[in-house]
């Protein structure tokens, strides 16, 4: 990482828009780089989903990759589509990395 290549470039509003419009599937190279960095930034307890109704409802959780590690559940954070969940996680990571709250 360098000054010319910050971990997350806050000025790239176009990437936020691209992700907001299309959350799962093919992305532009710059958005792919941003997503990979954001996703790898979480370290030991990445976000996961817990399916509460097959194909219809999920709640947010966190879990480390360690075998048998605790699954932290956030039952109040509910999603009704995978895309909704991806956007929420994007916003949370953006906030964690830049301090900026996206709406």
């Amino acid at each position, binding site marked *: 990482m360098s000054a010319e290549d910050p971990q997350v470039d806050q000025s790239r509003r176009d990437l936020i828009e691209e992700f907001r419009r299309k959350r*799962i599937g093919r992305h532009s190279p710059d958005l792919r780089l941003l997503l990979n960095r954001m996703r790898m930034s979480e370290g030991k307890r990445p976000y996961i989903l817990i399916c509460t109704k097959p194909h219809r409802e999920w709640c947010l959780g966190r879990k480390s990759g360690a075998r048998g590690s605790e699954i932290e559940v956030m039952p109040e954070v509910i999603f009704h589509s995978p895309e909704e969940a991806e956007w929420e996680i994007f916003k949370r990571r953006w906030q964690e990395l830049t301090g900026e709250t996206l709406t």
Partner: protein
Amino acid sequence: MRTGLPRKRIAGYASRMSVRPGDRIDFMVSCEDVSDYAAEIVRLISGDHHPDGMGFVEEPVQTDIAAKHKGRFQQLYAGSFAVIDDIEAFRPVTDFTLQAMIWPTAPGKGRQTLMGRRLSANKTGFALVLDEAGALAVEIGDGKAIRTISTDTPLREREWAFVAATFNASNGTLKLYQEPVDSFNRSLAPNRREARVDGMKPATGRMPFMIAAAGASFGNGRLVADCHFNGKIDSPIAVAAELDRQAMESLRRPDCPLPTAILAAWDFAQAIPTDRIIDRSPFARHGRLINLPARAMKGHNWTGEILDWKQAPEQYGAIHFHDDDLYDAGWDVDVSLIVPGSLRSGVYAAKLTAGDEVEYIPFVVRPGRDQKKAGAVFLMPTASYMAYANERTGLEGGARIHAFTNHLVGLGPGDIWLNEHPEVGNSLYCHHSDGSGVCYSSRLRPILNFRPGITSAWIGAAGTAPWQFNADLALIGWLEARGIPYDVITDEDLHEEGFPLLDGYNAVLTGSHPEYYSKAMYEALVSYLGRGGRLMYLGGNGFYWRIAYHPILPGVIELRRAEDGIRDWVAEGGEYFHSFTGEYGGMWSRMGRPIHALVGVGMAAQGFDVSSYYRRMPGSRDPRASFIFDGVEDEVIGDFGTVGGGAAGLELDRYDRSQGSPAHALVLASSESHSDTYFPPPDEINNATAMMDGRQNANIRADLVFFETQGGGAVFSTGSISWIGSLSHNKCDNNVSRITENVLRRFLESERFVVP
């Protein structure tokens, strides 16, 4: 139990995956907080909960199994070890020498037993152990107290060491020897310890002599072990006398005469394919291995010159034990079924219900010996189900999994059960707890991802794609919906019976991902095709890995992830040959059996976010293909489906002349527009470039291929795992369904195909 998580409370497995009418099948069940449950047998039609899918469809069938059962908990005892049959020989031992070469893989992970007759709760016996810090220690218990001495120097992970302990009752001296032997740029400082334990001697106990674990309890015919060792043990020797260091060294030579006080000298290089360990002493104090630790493992004396254990078994005298090995759960039977003659061939399950908790234990009913075969047969890829049994990437992928799959993981109740029960054992995609690869997988334990109605935790957005069994169930639903009679058989049947099992069927249909093939399975298919058989390969990444079924032990396969290919773990150099059979392991394409030659296409790419569609190619206009596209005017094929939204997705195979695709094969359609998270397998990447992903790489595609064979048969390949997920779209009125049915109906006709 944690609140807020969906919870699975019943888990079970069956004694078999495939039965004929008249056969008996047993179901073993464990319940948590379930006092009683109802049992019935159902025929499974569809397990697709996708909003656009067929739904969950099952039909109850009449059998005479008992309807009501008491729920009970049955424990899983993971961890491999050896137990010596002759218990009495080790009971009176006072003076002893225990020695071995070891390669510890998790020193410091709790107390671990190398060998001994332990010391259970009643504080009797003796054992050579690694203590909590990973240092060599010896314990003796006189029935009142346990005395331990340790070298207090941890052994180093994955480095060979000579270890030994002696006890001399007459002078009350315990001695320890810990000597690293790997000389390459490493410290060789030996470590010795000696202590007096005056007046103490090992008390007689009921425990048998064990290697790589200690006895926790022993009763009702079941030996329960604990303090499992992780790592390799080579040439363990037990002597009923104190030996000096020089005598120990002599004993390491196989030609050295054994001392008269020898108790046993086990040679793990003998009987490698079995679950027996052989004592080369005159007493023949052989033992049994429990839970299949890894064999044909490089020993301390491996030179690197020999790569095949059969050529120098003496260099493969190590067994790698793991605290999470599990072969046969060994549960007591709860429900038994004698398969009624009235059951037609198909996919069935024992359905166990307690309130809103339902467990399905699937099995196949194949046609009876005297029954007329249907024209079509679904060859259920149960070897591949076993390879994926209890696969845990969604639970254990960490942060990397989101970047890898391009979507979040979504855990279901089965995944949560798996997380809470690591003792249910591993898939061939897992690492052992010590980081080594898992090369054996059995079906004699609950397999949580061998269930109708479930999806993978990590494949498809939010883990919504079915994988293996439930993905293949969509083919059953489609066959039923289209009114096409079919039989069902399994990989295991094909392995055992070979070509005659297929003889007489007009068309063989694969599942979505028939990745793992034994030699017998592979040759049966080749024989079938050579005699006019018709094969519909309705999946992707098929026929990729060679596996071995154990020739004697039921329900277990072996895989060596050798050389190349997509490898979730990588076999070590020198460990590429199966222990079960001695066969070379790895990819079929590297053993003169290119997938492309068998089915016209071979592995091109994988990705796990969204699926795509095919576009028709000139081959589809060839008169030879006119029957395939009868009634299909569309240029775009399969831009719909319940697996990633398209018929071309997850794992893709392409036509490639240079890898053996038949020259006369017709490429009917090719997929395009794949996501930038689709990548080729390592076997397609000989030199990395910045143009490998699905957005830039024309080789990332599925080819729909058809070709005739010399015997009058033909092959139709979709080259895509998600194809089957598109069949039922719009009540089966769609171009994927039409093409599949056109092919199948023609394949069922007896008229020969002719190679142009």
